[in-house]
Structure formats: C-alpha cells, structure tokens
C-alpha cells in the first residue's frame, strides 16, 4: 500500500467544524471512509459529517456478530447439556438421560454468553480496535476539542488541506504520515 498523509485539525466549536468538513471533502474528493471526526462524546450520526450512509452499512451488519455468536452459543448449550445425556448415560433421580428443562436453562445461559462475546467482537471488528500504534490524535480531544481528520494521498494535498482547515477556524493543525 502506498503511503498516505493525514491532517488533523482541532476546532473548538461544533459550528466551525461542521462548516470545515464538507469543503475539504469536496476539494480533495475524499472518500467516505477517509475523513473522520474525533470527539470526546458521542454525537448523533450525521451531526458533524455526512457519514450516515457509511455507518448505516456498518450498523446493519453489526448485529450479525452477537446474533450468529448467539446461535453458536445455542448449539454449544444444547451440545453440552443435552449431549451429556449421551456420554454420561447415568440415571439420576429417575430422570431420563436427556431432559428438556435443564437443557433449556443451560442453553439460555450459553446463548447469552456467546451473545456478549459477539457484541464485544463486533465493537472490536468494526471500530478497528485494538490499535496500539501511534495514530493521528491529540490529547486535547479528550478535553473537549473537536478533531477533523483527513486522509490524503500526496504531500501537496496535505499542505492544501492544512491551509483550508486553518482558514475554516482550526486552532491547531497536526500533520502525519501513514497514521490515519
């Protein structure tokens, strides 16, 4: 993969960053996934950038993780609790080797357990975490600054984008290589 260059502009107000995002996107024909906003709180989808469509695609697939894992858990539960009747064909309390109610209880728990794991996996997979490498970021984001992060493919574009951001009210600009 060829090198890419990033610009991170920090803003103080939502109005300014909202105005900065779209011109930059148009000027450099930035693809949907190549522009990001860094915030310290969850803003509603589309509040700052028009990325609703992209995120909608992600979200519509995200439920598959817990859902499919839940199925797996269901299978695991049935196999464990029900299958025990086959491998341990012992009679306890006059009950049959395979019993529905206990199998149901254990299956329920396993389904939910796998659902929990699936939810976490969905977060890690779609959010690209964990990623411990040095990435374009500024600690001021966690103190309330709003960051506009763009991925570009040439140094000229990087310079231009940085300038544009400054024009649109960014109070701090950070440039980087291969750290989107």
């Amino acid at each position: 993969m060829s090198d890419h260059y990033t610009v991170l502009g920090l803003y103080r107000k939502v109005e300014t960053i909202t105005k900065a995002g779209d011109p930059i996107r148009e000027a450099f024909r930035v693809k949907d996934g190549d522009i990001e906003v860094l915030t310290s709180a969850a803003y509603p989808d589309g509040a700052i950038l028009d990325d609703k469509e992209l995120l909608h695609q992600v979200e519509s697939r995200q439920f598959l993780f817990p859902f499919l894992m839940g199925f797996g858990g269901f299978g695991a539960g049935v196999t464990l609790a029900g299958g025990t009747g086959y491998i341990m064909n012992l009679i306890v309390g006059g009950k049959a080797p395979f019993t529905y109610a206990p199998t149901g209880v254990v299956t329920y728990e396993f389904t939910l357990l796998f659902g929990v794991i699936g939810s976490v996996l969905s977060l890690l997979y779609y959010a690209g975490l964990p990623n411990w490498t040095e990435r374009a970021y500024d600690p001021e984001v966690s103190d309330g600054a709003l960051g506009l992060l763009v991925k570009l493919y040439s140094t000229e574009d990087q310079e231009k984008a940085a300038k544009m951001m400054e024009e649109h009210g960014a109070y701090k600009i950070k440039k980087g290589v291969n750290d989107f």
Partner: protein
Amino acid sequence: MRILKGSIKVKSFNYKEDNDYSWSMIIDLDRCNGCGACVIGCQAENNVATVGEEEVGKKRNMHWLRIERYIEGEYPHVKVRFLPMMCQHCAQAPCESVCPVYATYHNPEGLNVQVYNRCIGTRFCGNNCPYSVRYFNWFDSSFPEPVNNQLNPDVSVRERGVMEKCSMCMQRIRRGKDTAKDEGREVVDGDIQPACAQTCPTGAITFGNINDHESKVYKMAHSGRAISLFEEKGTHPAVKYLKGGTNDVIG
C-alpha cells in the same frame, strides 16, 4: 429416540423389570427393640468414622444407620417406638439429580450409589434428602490404635469434605453375586446379608432381591403391613417398613 422417551414418561426406568436384581430391604418394626446392634454392625463393616463426644454433641455423628426414638403419650402412659433409619435407596431419589458432578447416581440394580472420589462436597444432596440420611465428613476421620486393625479392607476410608451414606453393604452384594456366578446360579435368599441384617438379634431386617417373586422380601413387601416412609414425597424407596405398634407386647 429411546433417550428422549424417558423425559415424557418419567417412570420408564423400572428396576423391577429391566434387570435381574432389584435389591430391597424390609424392616419389621414390630420386631425392632431398639438395641442398636445394627448401628454398631454397620459402623464396623463400613469403616464409618467415630467422631468423638464433642462432635456428636454438635450432631455430626456419621451413623449410616441410626435408631430414631419416638415417644408417644404422656407420662406415665408412655410408649417408645423405634425406627431404624438408613438411606432408603429411592427409585426417584431427590439427592441424585441435584449433584453437579454425578457423585451419586442410581445403579441398574436399584441402589443409590455414592462415588466418594467424585464428590466435591456441595452438600446439596443432603439438603434434598427428606430422610436426612446423608452424612458429611466434617473432618478427616481418625482411627487410632487399635481401631485401625479392624478396618474393613473392602471399603474405602473417606476423606474430609465428602458425603457418605448407607450403601446396603455394596461389598457384600458384590461378593454374593460373584459366588453365585461361580456356582452358576442366580442369587437366592441368604446369599447376601448386609451387616445390619446379620447383627440384628430379633431378625427385624431382611434383605433380598425383590425381582425374585419367591424371595422373602417380595412376600413381605406385599404383606399389607408394608409401608414406605414419606410416601407422599413420591421417592419410591427400596427400603420398606412393616408397620408396628399394633401389638402391645412389644413397643
């Protein structure tokens, strides 16, 4: 589908029809005079730990078989009744299904079996036993000199933290069956005698195969005096009692 069948019809495991042997014990309450010889016989045969005076005071005695005394009436018209109580070997044993590690289960001959090595000591079985006949090893058992010389080599000594209870002298049943097999015949009455039955001076305890319709236990179990303890619990015990107290000579 055989495995599913039972869950619809709970009582499908009929020890009386599916197997050659179904062990049973009949205790004639009219014959019991509460001497307690069976308790000692059981204790000696099964290496049951002696816990000492202090622990017995805390109700931690381990007698697999105990004589329960019930006193009827007001002084001076008092009657004492005795009830030898041991594991009832229930066909639908409440203790078995609650064990998380299969340390207790039902063997094909209708006995409730305790596997000491599997037991982790959750004591759930003890809580679910309506007869309270399961005993827990609160401490390691000690057999000081010279008691250690009388330990029965056929029976394991239990570790601390393990549940135990009457096994209907499993080791004797095994030996009886082996002898009968060597002689090429079925086990008949008199081949096997648990320690308590052997010790009982009045012959109140009878042991045998209830599948054998010629056996004593079969006849006694169908005598009309036969009752099961806590019948309303639906446990279907293999131990049956012959009602006592109607005869005022003993009692």
